[in-house]
């Protein structure tokens, strides 16, 4: 399992890449894409949506099931990765390149985990 050190993570398996103090990109972790299996649809949020940490922001569908994606932090959606609409497999192929959406005015970052903390969460779920 690949867990880049420079990223932050949520317990709900989203990764967060800060591009400034108040802006970030959000995607699904390698652990998440592996557990979901081949993705076939991605529903992205609309821009200007207010993301609230811990609440559903969008969803992804794999050959197994539809799964909610939770906002790992709070903020305002400024952009979504429309390439994923036609090519959801990008998430499987390159989970840390395939960002889902970008946020500005980011707050509620206290519960984010570093790579080591997130790996522990994954290890517990494996059992």
């Amino acid at each position, binding site marked *: 399992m690949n867990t880049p050190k420079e990223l932050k993570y949520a317990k709900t398996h989203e990764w967060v890449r800060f591009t400034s103090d108040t802006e970030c990109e959000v995607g699904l972790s390698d652990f998440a894409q592996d557990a979901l299996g*081949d993705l*076939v*649809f991605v529903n992205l949020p609309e821009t200007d949506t207010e993301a609230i940490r811990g609440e559903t922001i969008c969803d992804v*569908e794999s*050959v*197994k*099931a539809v799964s909610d994606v939770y906002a790992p932090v709070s903020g305002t959606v400024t952009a979504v990765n429309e390439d994923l609409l036609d090519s*959801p*497999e990008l998430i499987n192929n390159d989970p840390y390149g395939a960002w889902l959406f970008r946020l500005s005015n980011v707050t509620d970052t206290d519960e984010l985990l570093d790579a080591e903390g997130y790996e522990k969460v994954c290890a517990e779920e494996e059992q």
Partner: protein
Amino acid sequence: MKTLFERSVAGRHCSILPACDVPLKTPDHVRTAPLRLPELSETDISRHYTELAKQTFGVNDGFYPLGSCTMKYNPKINEEAASLAGFTEVHPSQDHVQGCLEVLATAEKYLCEITGMNAMTFQPAAGAHGELTGLMLIKRYHELRGDSARNKIIVPDSAHGTNPASSAMCGFTVVNIPSAEDGCVDLDKLREACGEDTAGLMLTNPNTLGIFDKHIREITDIVHEAGGLCYYDGANLNAVMGIARPGDMGFDCIHLNLHKSFSTPHGGGGPGSGPVGCKSFLEAYLPGEKIVFADGRYQLAERGEESIGAVRSFHGNFLVVVKAFTYLLTLGREGVPKVAQNAVLNANYLKHLLEGTYEVTNKGVCMHEFVLTLEREKKETGVSAMDIAKALQDYGMHPPTMYFPLNVHEALMVEPTETESKETLDAAAAAFLDIYEKAKADPEAMHHTPLHSPIGRPDEVKAARHPVLRYHFDD
């Protein structure tokens, strides 16, 4: 195999129409280019559909333990009753035909007795349609009380798969709550989720793990105390019908699947029928017309302004109700609970034969179905639930439900139903055990099963991402 378009030969046809003997007048807006319909002889068409039929697998072909789908045998006497000219030659608008109204009224009475409800509508055409209708009743109830802040429906993770979708369709927000260790609803989590915004709870009991929730009265009480209503998804009624009633468990409204519990054809052999029943305080909101017996005859009565309005035309799939009614008359009061008992017995028998080899999630006695998990095998040998399901096809049986419920990894959900004999169950168990041995000896070979099906392993990812849903002409 070839599609009808690929079999088509220009100029070939199977009926000769007489020359038109009225003057031909073509309005301007009519298309002049001919439709590109396939052209075939009757022989070709007949062989095409027979070939298609040979590639399908139904209850009449063999064992079909598709969990939570209750693929029981559909008795032929049902079809005979539904083919009677008195039923088939009636137009739905002939709503005074006493025999038809009597069937509907009596079926309503029997099904209300079985479920502990007070009234029922036959309009919904299938289970999910029934769910939507039932949720609309709940919505109407809160609206008419001016309780408009109730916008959340609680759905446990062991509930039926369509519940969250139906709630969202009805405009509710879905609140998912996890199951406790024992597979039942986690009462603490339920209490936490309940509040002033709770519109209701949707529950399948027994749930998709085949467990009858022992706290059922407590569950419905918690929801009622918070001001919400309780909806019973009838998907798993086969395990308890004639023995325990949703109405007595504290449910306010329900749907049934006549194509599951009441032996009418399922899936492509349908259509389905998903009647919705409710307690008296919700009756005024039901869709369609009410059938009443007054002045010595059956009559139709309007439901009034509080009704949610029609959800389908007339009385839904009427002939399906005739089939289910025939089934009830065949079984009688004594037969209905026997169905449930035998369904539970069959599930436990098969579970017992498998549980020394396969890991079963239900630890004690199960209800009408049980769930196997291949999580350990997947990790250790790479053999997945999908591999086992595919391998079963080579033994002449339909695979169980796969990858559901979602709270069990590598799940296979097995529901044998009451209409299978001990010999069939023994043969199925032998197939399961044989496959397990083969998987242990040669895990790699499992990925190549089935070997004898017309279609082996379709590319599911490609089918979902790039479905081809129509024929494309070459030119």
